[in-house]
């Protein structure tokens, strides 16, 4: 038998301090063992070899608004290629006099995306705002009514095309993927087999071949005189492709749901649609936010494959600039610029997904 004294409250006892200033941190994290010290030194050496020359090339010796001739003479980066060709890179063959229209459309799109980023604003009005915004954007791009000259979609290109394909592609593929995932879990054998066939067939084929099919084979089946816009066909291929991948990820989320959640929903008397909408999907989709965003990011980058059916997306307009003899040889600068644009978009998606995950977390 023992009875312990529990009156001592240890109020003055603080957790032991390990980190003592910068030196202490360095010693604890970078030089705590001989091989860590070696790795640290090696890494510092590599940084020294790479970073200063890059800064010299990119910033100090570089040209920002010069002619191509000046660029060819110096050894620094030639950012002038962007400066001189920015309109073509961003807008493609869109008539220069009308390029304010896609620019305005993109600004509207960014504004809508920024507003939608905040869940506080999610309401019915936001949906109406999106619909209105999409109509205005479509009108700006296409024209033909209310005093704007009509611009055929074959002249669309560059960043607006990339964004169109991505935004519509992702916005349509996500709900379609969810429906496919539910179909694959269905108790009805017909629906289940049809979705399995669809998902497996689409996943078994590269996106390029789907794009080819939509561009070349599909029109052969259409009656004479009927043509479907090439952008729409590419868009459909992207949506179908992405949806199949989203479906499999969502299925993973559905399978992670404990059986008890279905049973609790059943025992309250909720029907199938209510159970899915109110109980299962909100939780399952939350679980699969990270892999879903991976798919959406890679789908966004895959839109660049539309070059193979001769659509001038952002990557293709950049490539075309490089085939101009005046600017040949500056591909590094041009591709770094495009990479930056792609990176900003992808980074936007990934930070937003992390923010969403944090907001939706309920086990605080």
């Amino acid at each position, binding site marked *: 038998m023992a009875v312990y004294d529990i009156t001592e409250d240890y109020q003055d006892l603080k957790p032991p301090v390990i980190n003592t200033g910068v030196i202490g941190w360095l010693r604890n994290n970078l030089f705590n063992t001989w091989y860590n010290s070696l790795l640290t030194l090696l890494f510092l050496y590599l940084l020294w070899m790479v970073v200063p020359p890059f800064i010299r090339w990119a910033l100090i010796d570089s040209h920002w608004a010069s002619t191509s001739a000046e660029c060819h003479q110096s050894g620094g980066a030639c950012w002038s290629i962007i400066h001189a060709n920015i309109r073509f890179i961003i807008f493609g063959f869109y008539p220069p006099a009308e390029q304010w229209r896609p620019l305005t459309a993109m600004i509207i799109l960014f504004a809508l995306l920024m507003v939608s980023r905040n869940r506080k604003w999610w309401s019915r009005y936001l949906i109406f705002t999106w619909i209105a915004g999409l109509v205005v954007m479509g009108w700006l791009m296409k024209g033909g009514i209310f005093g704007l000259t009509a611009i055929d979609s074959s002249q669309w290109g560059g960043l607006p095309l990339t964004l169109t394909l991505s935004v519509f592609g992702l916005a349509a593929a996500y709900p379609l993927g969810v429906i496919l995932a539910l179909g694959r879990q269905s108790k009805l054998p017909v629906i289940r087999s049809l979705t399995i066939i669809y998902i497996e067939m689409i996943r078994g084929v590269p996106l390029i071949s789907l794009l080819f099919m939509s561009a070349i084979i599909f029109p052969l089946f259409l009656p004479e005189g009927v043509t479907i816009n090439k952008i729409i066909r590419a868009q459909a291929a992207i949506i179908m492709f992405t949806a199949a991948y989203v479906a499999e990820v969502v299925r993973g989320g559905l399978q992670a749901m404990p059986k*008890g959640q279905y049973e*609790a929903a*059943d025992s*309250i008397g*909720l029907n199938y649609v209510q159970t899915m909408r109110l109980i299962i999907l909100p*939780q399952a989709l939350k679980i699969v936010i990270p892999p879903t965003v991976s798919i959406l990011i890679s789908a966004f980058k895959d839109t660049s494959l539309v070059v193979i059916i001769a659509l001038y997306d952002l990557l293709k307009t950049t490539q075309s600039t490089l085939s101009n003899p005046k600017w040949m040889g500056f591909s590094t600068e041009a591709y770094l610029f495009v990479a930056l644009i792609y990176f900003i978009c992808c980074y936007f998606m990934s930070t937003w997904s992390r923010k969403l995950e944090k907001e*939706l977390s309920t086990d605080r």
Partner: protein
Amino acid sequence: MSETKEAMNKPRTDKPIQPAENDNIITIIGMHKWFGEFHVLKDINLEVKARERIVVCGPSGSGKSTMIRCINRLEEHQRGRIIVNGIELSKNLKNIEKIREEVGMVFQHFNLFPHLTIIENLTLGPLWVRKMPLKEARELAMYYLEKVHIAEQAEKYPGQLSGGQQQRVAIARSLCMKPKVMLFDEPTSALDPEMVKEVLDVMISLAHEGMTMIVVTHEMGFAKSVAHRVLFMDEGRIVEENTPDEFFDHPQHERTKLFLSQILH
């Protein structure tokens, strides 16, 4: 003093509300169920009257949970008939939904919806199944939350509550549907010992109000003080059925005697 103790010390004649004489709220006739080849329930016959309280006990794997899960069609029976509140369970989805509206269920692992707050968990059924206006549903929910002594947690998420609190919320969630029968599937088995009492207290007060209850449990004290009848199940059959007094003091069947000797030490 604790309500549990009080209730347990009361003589049984004190039971405030006696079962109705004639109308069966649940009738099970010759029910069989198989899981694949395995025969889990064999010829189950049971009649439950309104306001009757039945405790089902038995060793694990005896089919007691499966039996009560058949009553609201979480499991499908393959032979025999189950009639709940005048509606026979069949493949008809509308009938199943109608029965589930009238039968509340409390699970061993609570099964609260973790992405919804406590109050949202409670209002879900009234809002979507009963089509109640939001204000009314919230008032109803608060009424039952107060009843299970947990009103101050209304805006929290289930993950922030203790097991005992979660189970009380689960009971309140079922009550919000104003069920005619409550099924309890081992409601205290997943709880820390310290929390069993707070859940049993809620169940006892529910019993005093005349709720029809079928409770699968190993809490023999609860069975003694609250039940009108105790069923003992083994290997998919109802082996013995008696009043708690007779059941605990003069068990008839050898299997029952063995079971009681093992759990009562």
